[in-house]
Protein backbone atom coordinates (compact mmCIF):
# COMPACT_ATOMS: atom_id res chain seq x y z
CA UNK A 1 0.00 0.00 0.00
CA UNK A 2 2.88 2.33 0.93
CA UNK A 3 4.43 1.97 -2.48
CA UNK A 4 1.16 2.87 -4.20
CA UNK A 5 0.74 6.01 -2.10
CA UNK A 6 4.29 7.01 -2.95
CA UNK A 7 3.68 6.39 -6.65
CA UNK A 8 0.55 8.51 -6.52
CA UNK A 9 2.45 11.28 -4.77
CA UNK A 10 5.13 11.21 -7.46
CA UNK A 11 2.50 11.21 -10.21
CA UNK A 12 0.58 14.11 -8.65
CA UNK A 13 3.75 16.16 -8.14
CA UNK A 14 4.78 15.53 -11.73
CA UNK A 15 1.30 16.47 -12.92
CA UNK A 16 1.31 19.69 -10.90
CA UNK A 17 4.70 20.83 -12.17
CA UNK A 18 3.86 19.88 -15.77
CA UNK A 19 0.70 21.98 -15.54
CA UNK A 20 2.67 24.98 -14.29
CA UNK A 21 5.29 24.49 -17.00
CA UNK A 22 2.66 24.15 -19.76
CA UNK A 23 0.80 27.22 -18.51
CA UNK A 24 4.02 29.25 -18.52
CA UNK A 25 5.01 27.99 -21.97
CA UNK A 26 1.57 28.70 -23.38
CA UNK A 27 1.63 32.25 -22.01
CA UNK A 28 5.20 33.10 -22.92
CA UNK A 29 5.40 31.51 -26.36
CA UNK A 30 5.70 34.19 -29.05
CA UNK A 31 4.33 31.79 -31.66
CA UNK A 32 0.54 31.82 -31.26
CA UNK A 33 0.00 28.43 -32.89
CA UNK A 34 2.42 26.85 -30.46
CA UNK A 35 0.70 28.67 -27.60
CA UNK A 36 -2.69 27.25 -28.62
CA UNK A 37 -1.38 23.70 -28.89
CA UNK A 38 0.21 24.07 -25.46
CA UNK A 39 -3.07 25.44 -24.13
CA UNK A 40 -4.92 22.36 -25.43
CA UNK A 41 -2.34 20.09 -23.81
CA UNK A 42 -2.77 22.10 -20.62
CA UNK A 43 -6.55 21.53 -20.77
CA UNK A 44 -6.09 17.77 -21.16
CA UNK A 45 -3.72 17.56 -18.22
CA UNK A 46 -6.09 19.79 -16.24
CA UNK A 47 -8.85 17.25 -16.92
CA UNK A 48 -6.54 14.54 -15.61
CA UNK A 49 -5.95 16.66 -12.51
CA UNK A 50 -9.68 16.92 -11.90
CA UNK A 51 -9.89 13.13 -12.13
CA UNK A 52 -7.13 12.88 -9.53
CA UNK A 53 -9.16 15.24 -7.33
CA UNK A 54 -12.18 12.92 -7.63
CA UNK A 55 -14.17 15.41 -9.67
CA UNK A 56 -15.04 13.50 -12.86
CA UNK A 57 -17.86 15.93 -13.73
CA UNK A 58 -15.46 18.84 -13.98
CA UNK A 59 -12.91 16.62 -15.72
CA UNK A 60 -15.44 15.85 -18.46
CA UNK A 61 -16.35 19.52 -18.85
CA UNK A 62 -12.69 20.56 -18.88
CA UNK A 63 -11.73 18.00 -21.52
CA UNK A 64 -14.71 18.75 -23.75
CA UNK A 65 -14.99 22.51 -23.39
CA UNK A 66 -11.67 23.68 -21.93
CA UNK A 67 -9.41 21.66 -24.19
CA UNK A 68 -11.59 20.62 -27.14
CA UNK A 69 -13.97 23.43 -28.01
CA UNK A 70 -11.85 26.31 -26.74
CA UNK A 71 -8.94 24.87 -28.67
CA UNK A 72 -11.03 24.74 -31.85
CA UNK A 73 -12.24 28.32 -31.27
CA UNK A 74 -8.71 29.59 -30.70
CA UNK A 75 -7.40 27.83 -33.81
CA UNK A 76 -10.16 29.27 -35.98
CA UNK A 77 -9.50 32.72 -34.49
CA UNK A 78 -5.83 32.30 -35.37
CA UNK A 79 -6.74 31.32 -38.93
CA UNK A 80 -8.78 34.53 -39.22
CA UNK A 81 -5.95 36.62 -37.83
CA UNK A 82 -3.56 35.06 -40.33
CA UNK A 83 -5.95 35.69 -43.18
CA UNK A 84 -6.14 39.39 -42.23
CA UNK A 85 -2.41 40.12 -42.18
CA UNK A 86 -0.17 37.72 -43.96
CA UNK A 87 2.82 38.49 -41.74
CA UNK A 88 3.46 35.97 -39.00
CA UNK A 89 1.52 36.77 -35.89
CA UNK A 90 3.74 37.63 -33.01
CA UNK A 91 2.63 38.81 -29.62
CA UNK A 92 3.16 42.48 -28.98
CA UNK A 93 6.36 43.42 -27.30
CA UNK A 94 6.11 45.30 -24.05
CA UNK A 95 7.90 48.65 -24.03
CA UNK A 96 8.79 49.18 -20.39
CA UNK A 97 10.21 45.77 -19.66
CA UNK A 98 11.71 45.92 -16.14
CA UNK A 99 8.67 47.66 -14.65
CA UNK A 100 6.36 45.21 -16.43
CA UNK A 101 8.20 42.20 -15.06
CA UNK A 102 8.33 43.70 -11.59
CA UNK A 103 4.58 44.30 -11.60
CA UNK A 104 3.94 40.85 -13.00
CA UNK A 105 6.12 39.17 -10.41
CA UNK A 106 4.53 41.08 -7.55
CA UNK A 107 1.04 40.30 -8.77
CA UNK A 108 1.83 36.60 -9.19
CA UNK A 109 3.46 36.48 -5.77
CA UNK A 110 0.43 38.14 -4.18
CA UNK A 111 -2.00 35.72 -5.84
CA UNK A 112 0.18 32.68 -5.09
CA UNK A 113 0.68 33.59 -1.44
CA UNK A 114 -3.03 34.35 -1.07
CA UNK A 115 -3.87 30.94 -2.55
CA UNK A 116 -1.25 29.19 -0.43
CA UNK A 117 -2.58 30.92 2.68
CA UNK A 118 -6.16 29.89 2.00
CA UNK A 119 -5.17 26.31 1.22
CA UNK A 120 -3.00 26.02 4.33
CA UNK A 121 -5.69 27.48 6.60
CA UNK A 122 -8.28 25.02 5.28
CA UNK A 123 -9.47 22.57 7.85
CA UNK A 124 -8.27 19.11 7.06
CA UNK A 125 -11.07 16.82 5.89
CA UNK A 126 -13.51 19.68 5.94
CA UNK A 127 -16.79 18.32 4.58
CA UNK A 128 -17.96 21.76 3.42
CA UNK A 129 -21.57 21.75 2.37
CA UNK A 130 -21.53 18.14 1.23
CA UNK A 131 -23.39 16.97 4.36
CA UNK A 132 -26.38 19.14 3.50
CA UNK A 133 -26.17 18.18 -0.16
CA UNK A 134 -26.32 14.47 0.69
CA UNK A 135 -28.96 14.93 3.40
CA UNK A 136 -31.35 16.53 0.92
CA UNK A 137 -30.47 14.40 -2.09
CA UNK A 138 -33.77 12.48 -1.72
CA UNK A 139 -35.80 15.60 -2.45
CA UNK A 140 -33.59 16.85 -5.29
CA UNK A 141 -34.97 14.42 -7.87
CA UNK A 142 -31.52 13.14 -8.92
CA UNK A 143 -28.93 10.96 -7.24
CA UNK A 144 -25.78 12.59 -8.63
CA UNK A 145 -24.87 15.26 -6.06
CA UNK A 146 -23.21 17.45 -8.70
CA UNK A 147 -26.37 17.57 -10.80
CA UNK A 148 -28.41 18.17 -7.64
CA UNK A 149 -26.30 21.23 -6.85
CA UNK A 150 -26.19 22.54 -10.42
CA UNK A 151 -29.82 22.11 -11.34
CA UNK A 152 -31.65 22.16 -8.04
CA UNK A 153 -29.94 23.75 -5.04
CA UNK A 154 -28.05 26.30 -7.11
CA UNK A 155 -30.25 26.32 -10.20
CA UNK A 156 -29.92 30.09 -10.31
CA UNK A 157 -26.19 29.86 -11.01
CA UNK A 158 -26.70 27.48 -13.90
CA UNK A 159 -29.42 29.71 -15.31
CA UNK A 160 -27.03 32.65 -15.25
CA UNK A 161 -24.22 30.54 -16.73
CA UNK A 162 -26.44 29.72 -19.67
CA UNK A 163 -27.27 33.37 -20.16
CA UNK A 164 -23.54 34.17 -20.14
CA UNK A 165 -23.11 31.72 -23.02
CA UNK A 166 -25.97 33.42 -24.87
CA UNK A 167 -24.47 36.87 -24.27
CA UNK A 168 -21.11 35.62 -25.57
CA UNK A 169 -22.78 34.53 -28.78
CA UNK A 170 -24.60 37.87 -29.07
CA UNK A 171 -21.23 39.58 -28.66
CA UNK A 172 -19.82 37.62 -31.58
CA UNK A 173 -22.91 38.21 -33.69
CA UNK A 174 -22.70 41.94 -33.09
CA UNK A 175 -19.23 41.93 -34.67
CA UNK A 176 -20.62 41.06 -38.07
CA UNK A 177 -21.43 38.30 -40.47
CA UNK A 178 -19.82 34.94 -40.99
CA UNK A 179 -16.32 35.40 -42.42
CA UNK A 180 -15.91 34.06 -45.89
CA UNK A 181 -14.03 30.84 -45.62
CA UNK A 182 -11.54 29.69 -48.14
CA UNK A 183 -12.92 26.79 -50.05
CA UNK A 184 -11.60 23.88 -48.12
CA UNK A 185 -11.27 20.46 -49.58
CA UNK A 186 -11.86 18.17 -46.66
CA UNK A 187 -10.74 15.12 -48.55
CA UNK A 188 -11.93 11.60 -48.47
CA UNK A 189 -10.87 10.76 -44.94
CA UNK A 190 -12.94 13.47 -43.27
CA UNK A 191 -15.85 12.73 -45.57
CA UNK A 192 -15.83 9.12 -44.39
CA UNK A 193 -14.99 9.88 -40.78
CA UNK A 194 -17.63 12.47 -40.10
CA UNK A 195 -20.76 10.48 -41.01
CA UNK A 196 -19.32 7.82 -38.66
CA UNK A 197 -18.48 10.15 -35.82
CA UNK A 198 -21.46 12.49 -35.77
CA UNK A 199 -24.14 9.89 -34.94
CA UNK A 200 -21.81 8.53 -32.28
CA UNK A 201 -21.32 12.00 -30.80
CA UNK A 202 -25.08 12.53 -30.71
CA UNK A 203 -25.57 9.16 -29.02
CA UNK A 204 -22.89 9.84 -26.41
CA UNK A 205 -24.41 13.28 -25.80
CA UNK A 206 -27.75 11.60 -25.12
CA UNK A 207 -26.04 9.12 -22.83
CA UNK A 208 -24.26 11.87 -20.87
CA UNK A 209 -27.50 13.79 -20.54
CA UNK A 210 -29.34 10.74 -19.26
CA UNK A 211 -26.48 9.59 -17.03
CA UNK A 212 -26.21 13.05 -15.48
CA UNK A 213 -29.05 12.19 -13.08
CA UNK A 214 -27.06 9.48 -11.32
CA UNK A 215 -23.46 9.62 -12.56
CA UNK A 216 -20.99 12.19 -13.91
CA UNK A 217 -22.44 13.92 -16.92
CA UNK A 218 -25.06 16.53 -17.61
CA UNK A 219 -26.16 19.28 -19.93
CA UNK A 220 -22.88 21.13 -20.40
CA UNK A 221 -20.87 18.00 -21.16
CA UNK A 222 -23.57 16.64 -23.47
CA UNK A 223 -24.00 20.04 -25.12
CA UNK A 224 -20.31 20.33 -25.81
CA UNK A 225 -20.41 17.00 -27.66
CA UNK A 226 -23.27 18.27 -29.81
CA UNK A 227 -21.23 21.41 -30.38
CA UNK A 228 -18.29 19.26 -31.46
CA UNK A 229 -20.54 17.47 -33.95
CA UNK A 230 -21.61 20.85 -35.34
CA UNK A 231 -18.00 21.99 -35.62
CA UNK A 232 -17.08 18.82 -37.52
CA UNK A 233 -19.85 19.61 -39.99
CA UNK A 234 -18.63 23.17 -40.35
CA UNK A 235 -15.04 22.01 -40.83
CA UNK A 236 -15.86 19.88 -43.84
CA UNK A 237 -17.80 22.78 -45.27
CA UNK A 238 -21.29 21.35 -44.99
CA UNK A 239 -23.76 24.12 -45.52
CA UNK A 240 -26.92 24.41 -43.53
CA UNK A 241 -29.84 25.75 -45.52
CA UNK A 242 -30.30 29.49 -45.16
CA UNK A 243 -33.92 28.96 -44.19
CA UNK A 244 -32.71 27.47 -40.90
CA UNK A 245 -30.30 30.28 -40.19
CA UNK A 246 -32.80 32.97 -39.26
CA UNK A 247 -35.60 32.55 -36.78
CA UNK A 248 -35.29 28.74 -36.34
CA UNK A 249 -31.66 29.12 -35.26
CA UNK A 250 -32.52 31.86 -32.79
CA UNK A 251 -35.33 29.80 -31.30
CA UNK A 252 -33.02 26.81 -30.86
CA UNK A 253 -30.31 28.93 -29.26
CA UNK A 254 -32.62 30.55 -26.71
CA UNK A 255 -34.76 27.45 -26.15
CA UNK A 256 -32.79 26.10 -23.18
CA UNK A 257 -32.70 29.37 -21.29
CA UNK A 258 -36.33 30.17 -22.14
CA UNK A 259 -37.53 26.80 -20.89
CA UNK A 260 -35.45 27.16 -17.73
CA UNK A 261 -37.02 30.54 -16.96
CA UNK A 262 -40.48 29.34 -17.98
CA UNK A 263 -40.26 26.39 -15.56
CA UNK A 264 -39.09 28.71 -12.80
CA UNK A 265 -41.89 31.19 -13.38
CA UNK A 266 -44.51 28.46 -13.78
CA UNK A 267 -43.53 27.09 -10.37
CA UNK A 268 -44.11 30.54 -8.89
CA UNK A 269 -47.70 30.40 -10.12
CA UNK A 270 -48.22 27.33 -7.94
CA UNK A 271 -46.99 29.15 -4.86
CA UNK A 272 -43.37 27.99 -4.96
CA UNK A 273 -40.28 30.13 -5.10
CA UNK A 274 -38.56 30.75 -8.43
CA UNK A 275 -37.04 27.38 -9.49
CA UNK A 276 -38.23 25.63 -6.32
CA UNK A 277 -39.20 22.23 -7.69
CA UNK A 278 -41.73 20.12 -5.78
CA UNK A 279 -39.77 16.97 -4.95
CA UNK A 280 -42.22 14.66 -6.73
CA UNK A 281 -41.64 16.48 -10.02
CA UNK A 282 -38.02 17.50 -9.51
CA UNK A 283 -36.47 14.61 -11.46
CA UNK A 284 -38.61 15.12 -14.54
CA UNK A 285 -38.26 18.91 -14.47
CA UNK A 286 -34.48 18.68 -14.17
CA UNK A 287 -34.33 16.27 -17.09
CA UNK A 288 -36.59 18.51 -19.19
CA UNK A 289 -34.46 21.57 -18.47
CA UNK A 290 -31.24 19.68 -19.09
CA UNK A 291 -32.47 18.24 -22.38
CA UNK A 292 -33.41 21.68 -23.67
CA UNK A 293 -30.17 23.12 -22.32
CA UNK A 294 -28.11 20.42 -24.06
CA UNK A 295 -29.65 21.27 -27.41
CA UNK A 296 -29.17 25.01 -26.96
CA UNK A 297 -25.63 24.72 -25.60
CA UNK A 298 -24.65 22.47 -28.49
CA UNK A 299 -26.01 24.80 -31.14
CA UNK A 300 -24.62 27.87 -29.37
CA UNK A 301 -21.12 26.37 -29.24
CA UNK A 302 -21.24 25.45 -32.91
CA UNK A 303 -22.50 28.97 -33.68
CA UNK A 304 -19.60 30.43 -31.68
CA UNK A 305 -17.25 28.50 -33.94
CA UNK A 306 -18.97 29.93 -37.01
CA UNK A 307 -17.57 33.24 -35.83
CA UNK A 308 -20.27 35.63 -36.94
CA UNK A 309 -23.94 36.16 -37.44
CA UNK A 310 -25.20 33.73 -40.06
CA UNK A 311 -27.29 35.17 -42.82
CA UNK A 312 -25.81 38.62 -42.49
CA UNK A 313 -24.29 40.03 -45.62
CA UNK A 314 -20.81 41.35 -45.10
CA UNK A 315 -20.12 44.81 -46.45
CA UNK A 316 -16.71 45.31 -47.86
Amino acid sequence: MEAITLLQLIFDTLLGFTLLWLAWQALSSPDLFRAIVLFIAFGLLMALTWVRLNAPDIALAEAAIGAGLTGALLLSALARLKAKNSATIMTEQVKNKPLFWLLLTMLSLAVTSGLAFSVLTLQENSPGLSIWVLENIETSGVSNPVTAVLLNYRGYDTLLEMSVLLVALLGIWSLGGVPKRHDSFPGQILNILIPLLVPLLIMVAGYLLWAGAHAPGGAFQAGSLLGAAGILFLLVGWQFGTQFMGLPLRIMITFGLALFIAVGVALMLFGNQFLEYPSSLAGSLIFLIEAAATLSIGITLAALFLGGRPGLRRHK
Partner: protein
Amino acid sequence: MTLLIDILTSLLLIAGAVFFLGGTIGLFRFPDVYTRLHALTKADNVGLGLMMAGLSLQADSLATVGKLLLIWLLVLLASASVAHLIAKTARQRGIEPWKQ
Protein backbone atom coordinates in the same frame (compact mmCIF):
# COMPACT_ATOMS: atom_id res chain seq x y z
CA MET B 1 -6.77 -17.45 -10.11
CA THR B 2 -6.92 -13.81 -9.09
CA LEU B 3 -3.15 -13.79 -8.73
CA LEU B 4 -2.79 -15.15 -12.25
CA ILE B 5 -5.13 -12.50 -13.61
CA ASP B 6 -3.29 -9.79 -11.70
CA ILE B 7 0.04 -10.94 -13.09
CA LEU B 8 -1.37 -11.04 -16.62
CA THR B 9 -2.81 -7.52 -16.17
CA SER B 10 0.54 -6.22 -14.94
CA LEU B 11 2.35 -7.77 -17.89
CA LEU B 12 -0.12 -6.29 -20.38
CA LEU B 13 0.04 -2.84 -18.77
CA ILE B 14 3.84 -2.87 -18.70
CA ALA B 15 3.95 -4.02 -22.33
CA GLY B 16 1.55 -1.19 -23.20
CA ALA B 17 3.74 1.33 -21.39
CA VAL B 18 6.78 0.09 -23.33
CA PHE B 19 4.97 0.79 -26.61
CA PHE B 20 3.96 4.26 -25.40
CA LEU B 21 7.57 4.93 -24.42
CA GLY B 22 8.70 3.76 -27.84
CA GLY B 23 6.20 6.04 -29.55
CA THR B 24 7.34 8.99 -27.48
CA ILE B 25 11.01 8.34 -28.12
CA GLY B 26 10.16 8.07 -31.82
CA LEU B 27 8.38 11.42 -31.66
CA PHE B 28 11.48 13.03 -30.23
CA ARG B 29 14.17 11.24 -32.19
CA PHE B 30 12.78 10.64 -35.68
CA PRO B 31 13.93 13.04 -38.39
CA ASP B 32 10.74 14.41 -39.99
CA VAL B 33 7.01 14.81 -39.56
CA TYR B 34 6.08 11.64 -41.46
CA THR B 35 8.31 9.26 -39.52
CA ARG B 36 7.25 10.91 -36.27
CA LEU B 37 3.59 10.42 -37.09
CA HIS B 38 4.31 6.81 -37.91
CA ALA B 39 6.07 6.23 -34.59
CA LEU B 40 3.50 8.05 -32.52
CA THR B 41 0.26 6.68 -33.93
CA LYS B 42 1.33 3.10 -34.53
CA ALA B 43 3.07 2.59 -31.22
CA ASP B 44 0.37 4.39 -29.21
CA ASN B 45 -2.43 2.41 -30.83
CA VAL B 46 -0.78 -0.87 -29.89
CA GLY B 47 0.14 0.45 -26.45
CA LEU B 48 -3.42 1.56 -25.76
CA GLY B 49 -4.77 -1.77 -27.04
CA LEU B 50 -2.52 -3.67 -24.63
CA MET B 51 -3.54 -1.41 -21.78
CA MET B 52 -7.23 -1.83 -22.58
CA ALA B 53 -6.72 -5.61 -22.66
CA GLY B 54 -5.01 -5.44 -19.28
CA LEU B 55 -7.76 -3.29 -17.79
CA SER B 56 -10.49 -5.51 -19.29
CA LEU B 57 -9.17 -8.40 -17.20
CA GLN B 58 -9.92 -6.33 -14.08
CA ALA B 59 -13.38 -5.15 -15.21
CA ASP B 60 -16.43 -6.14 -13.14
CA SER B 61 -18.80 -6.60 -16.05
CA LEU B 62 -18.88 -7.17 -19.78
CA ALA B 63 -20.37 -3.69 -20.20
CA THR B 64 -17.15 -2.18 -18.86
CA VAL B 65 -15.12 -4.34 -21.24
CA GLY B 66 -17.33 -3.10 -24.07
CA LYS B 67 -16.72 0.51 -23.09
CA LEU B 68 -12.95 -0.03 -22.95
CA LEU B 69 -13.04 -1.70 -26.36
CA LEU B 70 -15.10 1.19 -27.73
CA ILE B 71 -12.59 3.72 -26.39
CA TRP B 72 -9.77 1.85 -28.11
CA LEU B 73 -11.63 1.63 -31.42
CA LEU B 74 -12.45 5.35 -31.30
CA VAL B 75 -8.83 6.23 -30.60
CA LEU B 76 -7.75 3.98 -33.50
CA LEU B 77 -10.16 5.76 -35.80
CA ALA B 78 -9.20 9.21 -34.60
CA SER B 79 -5.44 8.71 -34.60
CA ALA B 80 -5.38 7.07 -38.02
CA SER B 81 -7.49 9.88 -39.51
CA VAL B 82 -5.59 12.67 -37.79
CA ALA B 83 -2.24 11.19 -38.78
CA HIS B 84 -3.45 11.07 -42.38
CA LEU B 85 -4.71 14.67 -42.25
CA ILE B 86 -1.46 15.99 -40.77
CA ALA B 87 0.62 14.06 -43.29
CA LYS B 88 -1.57 15.30 -46.15
CA THR B 89 -1.27 18.91 -45.03
CA ALA B 90 2.48 18.50 -44.70
CA ARG B 91 2.63 17.12 -48.26
CA GLN B 92 0.57 20.00 -49.57
CA ARG B 93 2.93 22.46 -47.94
CA GLY B 94 5.77 20.81 -49.79
CA ILE B 95 7.55 19.15 -46.91
CA GLU B 96 9.58 16.39 -48.50
CA PRO B 97 9.80 13.02 -46.77
CA TRP B 98 13.15 12.40 -45.16
CA LYS B 99 15.69 10.47 -47.18
CA GLN B 100 18.92 9.29 -45.82
